[in-house]
């Protein structure tokens, strides 16, 4: 005889407040959300050979070295970084992968950090509830109604789509913060654009942008949309959607986790004001 399971399981009451789900409000310690320079890496002179090797192995070319005022300097472009962590493996004294997510920004140049960088912003580790609450307050205050988003895939690998779609699942449940996805750009305040801005999507993206009423905010989601990411600027891509439509917010990551998307929206609402 099979004994009845004492667990109510997912069909029981109050599933949404299921402890196992809500307890994981922050990213796992192993999550590769952000790459930063090791703070103490500026103390010693740089190993030039190592720098060059790391620069060469970095697939999306996020790491660059240059001579600035006679000094050798490394820069890290978080807009390109796909958080693979190979730089940390190769040069643990220089780079560090962090579990907080890379901070979404308003200006493209804010994504580039130089070494050594004591003021280099560290990854954010806010929970979805925290960001969501702030987002909800802002949306109510500034718009007095819901924020409408139209998602456009302009040539992504669908990784970003998975994360954008996750915003709608019952765990993130973005509608409770006064944000919802709409079917037409004509109803949208925000265009959430993923992907490299592929040549074949160029005119469709432009037309979607034109069809969105002002005031509108464009969010470039992920490394591809921000800079072309791993795919770069080739015959088939445009090196970031910024080369097709004006971008207001950049959300780094490959793909950005849903919390990062929420944070990007938080910045977007400010732009509508």
């Amino acid at each position: 005889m099979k004994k009845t399971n004492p667990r109510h399981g997912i069909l029981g009451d109050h599933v949404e407040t299921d402890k196992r789900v809500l307890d994981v409000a922050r990213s796992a310690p192993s999550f590769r959300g952000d790459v930063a320079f090791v703070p103490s890496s500026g103390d010693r002179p740089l190993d030039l050979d190592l720098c060059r090797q790391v620069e060469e192995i970095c697939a999306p070319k996020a790491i660059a070295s240059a001579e600035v005022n006679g000094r050798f300097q490394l820069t890290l472009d978080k807009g390109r970084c796909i958080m693979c962590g190979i730089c940390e493996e190769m040069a643990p004294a220089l780079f560090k992968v962090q579990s907080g997510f890379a901070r979404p920004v308003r200006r493209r140049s804010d994504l580039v950090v130089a070494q050594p960088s004591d003021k280099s912003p560290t990854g954010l580790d806010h929970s979805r509830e925290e960001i969501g609450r702030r987002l909800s307050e802002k949306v109510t205050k500034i718009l007095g109604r819901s924020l409408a988003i139209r998602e456009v895939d302009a040539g992504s690998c669908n990784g970003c789509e998975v994360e954008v779609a996750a915003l709608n699942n019952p765990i993130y449940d973005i509608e409770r913060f006064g944000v919802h996805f709409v079917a037409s750009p004509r109803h949208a305040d925000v265009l959430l654009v993923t992907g490299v801005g592929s040549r074949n999507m160029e005119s469709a993206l432009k037309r979607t942008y034109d069809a969105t009423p002002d005031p509108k905010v464009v969010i470039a989601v992920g490394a591809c949309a921000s800079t072309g990411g791993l795919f770069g600027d080739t015959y088939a891509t445009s090196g970031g959607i910024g080369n097709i439509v004006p971008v207001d917010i950049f959300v780094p990551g490959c793909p950005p986790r849903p919390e990062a998307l929420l944070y990007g929206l938080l910045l977007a609402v400010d732009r509508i004001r």
Partner: protein
Amino acid sequence: MTTGRVAIAHPGAASCGSRLLERFGTRLTAVRTMNWNEVHVDAGSKDDIPELCLYLRDELKGVLGTIVCSDERRVSGAFVLRYAFGIGNGEDLFVIVTARVEQGDYASPPVFPSIALSLPAATLYEREIKDMFGLTPVGNPDTRPLTLHEHWPDDVFPLRKEFELGTKVAKVLKRDYEFLKVEGEGVSEIPVGPVHAGIIEPGHFRFSILGESIVNLETRLFYTHRGVEKLAENLKLEQVLLLSERISGDEAVANSSAYCQAVEKVAGVVPPPRALQIRAVCAELERVYNHLGTLAGLSTDVGFAFGAARLNILKERMMQLNEEVAGSRLLFGVNRLGGVGIDLPLERSRLVKGVIDTVLDDFNRVISRLRNDSSVMDRLRGTGAIGLKDVAELGLVGVAARGSGLDVDTRRDHPYGAYRSIVIDPHHDTPRHITEHEVEMAKRRGDVLARFETRVEDVVNSVNIIDEVLGNLDCEPELLVPVQMEALKPFGHALGYAESHRGQTVHWVMIGEEPDTLFRYKVRTASFANWPAIEVAVLNDIVADFPLVNKSLDLSYAGNDL
């Protein structure tokens, strides 16, 4: 750890080769076996391609796995076409027909004989080769461009070697793409896309409808073409691994496993057993979270929000588990050339076990709810049916094929990695079970319901596989046998393959002349094989059922468009 390949011959390869020699004699210039199960057959003339391919399909029961074109003019003075046919049925062979296509000149541009009319599965490959290499398939009735849209000039071919990756080709004004016109009283057209209403990838659908019924559907894809194959020729091998994960983000493990496998074969490297097991565990985790998402999507599309919400909770749990395991919610970074980059120490494998067992428990409850809801079942039953004949002709793979009763699964037909010693489902152990399963397969009707049930079965099997593998994890701690660049001979090539949650993904790599480069990387995901199915599946259904049929096939646009 040994890095060498055990030099024993494949039991069926030699006899397969001699059968081909017997039949075609001197028309074949060479027959040789490589990489354990690849039988390479060189056709003396490209005009023999159709006959060879049809022989492979009809007599040897081969299934077209991929067609690879590569520009080897600088090396051997010609373009080379490779038609790879997989032979399952316990044989585990790939027969690869190779033929040369001379460059020709302005007066006689390069051409090759089309096999599309007798082997419809080849249609799209041929059109792709025409776009990317400029070789014209003679006899292919569809001469429209595929990968490169109308603004692309007719005489620029991105995969030819003289074309530089970064070239910005000026846009030209050409005629609009010609969709098949359906004419008659009351017939109208609905254009949909490329930007859709939901959060999905871009693609264009052109419906011709009579009242509510779909008379014809034409899909137009490649909006997300990112130049993956060309880009790979400009990256280091390790970087291509990162690229392979991003061919289609939700099948990262499957695609990167196939790529790793191909490179490892060329290098003669066998990853440690524990690494192969971890690959398999992650591949199954990927299958589970994606199937949960698709089943949730089906539930949404029939308007049953309750089921969708519950299944999406389960999907989210799996993605959180992915993050714990691999540091990425999409399992990026699992694979490395020669092994894996993550380990599953005891406490983590306990965590995996714990989560998947509760997820399965919950999953079964939700599914039984769905099955007991007539409004759900009514929408699934009989919708979007694909006949077994179409499945075979179009060369469908994965869930789409199994849902129509064609029992194909790369994990069993061409066992790779840890799947060599894993029983992937409980149906293929004893003769009695096999017969029972055959009867079961024959009953499948190829409709949305059949694909729904196939996915449910897949989830249960995957959880069992994970349980089994975790219970038998190899104790040797090695996770990586490094691939030495010196071991990769220039122009060495191999096939890699894996079963993603969508079906078979086939990757072919050819090593470049310079160390640590690729000469050619050809990817064929399950989506490329299965996209034509949707045009067949929706016929005579109503337009409102299209999203449901589309979701039931769960195809990736990015994986198709590359």
